[in-house]
């Protein structure tokens, strides 16, 4: 069963990445060209039909994958690059340093990601993908810090760390050689679920009109614009919705699959 989850997640993610790569290399037509026929049913040159401005739906979905991955990658890397080292430091230090770091994390955690994104998006005066990414990235830092800190605390309690100290190594070497490699699986799992969260957050932001700018296609934006056609042309909202769900589901399943794969304690015989 564990393998099935991993494979399901991996295939969905691969699909999204493939869509992203394909969109860079080839597109049925330019996603932004308007024209007639509008709201056309699927046809030869418009495999999935067109939206209310006559723009090709398939092209927009492919390009939408690009912004979705972009937001995910940038947001998760912000979260990981800042969150993990801070987590390790918090895990390793006692007393004031640890509490200050963790209190900081609590405060950022108290800012719901969406609230942060709204303020930042408004702060930059106009909806831009960068603000969405920065806001979502900032909000994933506490989660990374918490996860890394608890893993680091476990690792630092192991005897091989004591042995390394006994051999004369300083905290720097121990953090790099012993803590980081053993914390990596936990971080990997956290990254994949954070990816899912980032995609959802970006979709919600564009839905509120704060995410990616209108001219660059984004799935959340497409749903917002297609909302008033829900009675006549349901596919305009349904297709991007399915894409978002597939991408998020993919990353979550990948996260679960990785956790089972990398978590040795799962072999149990009783109960």
């Amino acid at each position, binding site marked *: *069963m564990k393998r099935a989850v991993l494979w399901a997640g991996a295939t969905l993610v691969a699909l999204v990445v493939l869509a992203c790569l394909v969109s860079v290399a080839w597109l049925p037509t330019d996603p932004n060209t308007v024209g007639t026929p509008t709201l056309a049913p699927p046809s030869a040159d418009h495999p999935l039909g067109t939206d209310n401005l006559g723009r090709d739906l398939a092209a927009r979905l492919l390009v939408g994958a690009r912004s979705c991955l972009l937001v995910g990658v940038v947001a998760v890397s912000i979260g990981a690059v800042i969150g993990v080292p801070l987590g390790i430091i918090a895990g390793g230090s006692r007393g004031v340093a640890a*509490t200050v770091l963790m*209190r*900081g994390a*609590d*405060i950022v*955690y*108290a*800012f*719901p*990601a*969406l*609230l*942060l994104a*709204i*303020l*930042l998006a*408004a*702060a*930059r*005066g106009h909806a831009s993908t960068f603000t969405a990414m920065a806001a979502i990235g900032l909000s994933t830092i506490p989660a990374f810090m918490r996860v890394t800190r608890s893993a680091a605390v476990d690792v630092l309690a192991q005897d091989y760390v004591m042995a390394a100290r006994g051999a004369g190594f300083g905290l720097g070497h121990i953090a790099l050689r012993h803590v980081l490699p053993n914390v990596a699986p936990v971080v990997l799992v956290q990254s994949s679920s954070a990816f*899912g969260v980032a995609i*959802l957050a970006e*979709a*919600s932001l564009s*839905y*509120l009109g704060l995410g990616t700018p209108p001219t660059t296609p984004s799935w*959340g934006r497409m*749903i917002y614009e297609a*909302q008033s056609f*829900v*009675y006549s042309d349901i596919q305009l*909202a349904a297709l991007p*919705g399915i894409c*978002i*769900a*597939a991408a*998020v*589901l993919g990353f*979550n*399943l990948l996260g*679960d699959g990785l956790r089972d794969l990398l978590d040795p304690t799962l072999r*149990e015989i*009783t*109960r």
Partner: protein
Amino acid sequence: MRTLKLLGNFLICLAVASVVVFAVVNLLPGDIAGVILGPNASPESVAALRERMGLDEPLVMRYVTWMGTLLSGHVPRSALSGAPVGADIAGRFAVTGWLVFFGMGVAICLALPMGAWAALNRHRPSGWLVSGFAQFGMAIPAFMVGICLTIIFGVKLRWFPANGYVEASTSVTGWLSHLVLPSITLGAVQGAILVRYVRSAFVDVLRTDWFRTARSVGWRRWAAVWRHGLRNTALQLVTVVGLQVGSLFAGAIVVESVFAIRGIGTYLLQNVSNRDLPVVSTIVLMLVALVLVVNLLVDLSYGFIDPRLRNRRRLGR
């Protein structure tokens, strides 16, 4: 002693949060003068209005005045209409509060049984089905769920009003019926996330030695979960629920805009677009404070649930 330390932490966090909130909010470009004078504003009239409203004072001064009003117990006036907004904010917090309360209720009533079932049957297909369903629930954005529910139940079947909000004081049934769809939307999404935590909390308990002892003295599986599993998972669940309050309020912002509920979320969005900075920073600080209070309550409740901490205090050790 432990409570004092927790309280201290809480206050420090709040103070730092207030500075952060004020700084971020004041980053907002464009200002209230432009909003008041509207499309026919001319540079001179905007400058004059800014000067009259004291918007040109240094940031620190404005922070001090803002905190001053807050600490002295009343809510700063809206810069736009000058009217006191204390009642408005309180009213809207109540609306969103009820939405979050019912949302969390739906989430817990969904997640607890599903999570426990998924944990107990994790090696059987029925267990995979439940966790698969939860995975799928997590993947759907809240506004999609909202739109679908509005169309199906609000517009087509007309079982419940599609959106809007009625005060409990005017009609309780109206109030409840307006909250059904939004709280299910909020609850479904948060519930799906909660299922994973409940499942892993129960799986942890199922793997403990004391659960095995309970089984070895004759308790059936579900009885052992009920007798010994529940309280021990409560600890983890209270933490998760506490952490989720923050994301619930964020979710509420989206649900409120889909269901046109005049909660704190839409009010905040509206004030941000009006650049009514004192009101925005007050609301944001309140939201942050609320999350910190919930975290404090969660920490305090540990002592309540887990006698290990409780008795330590009793024996004074």
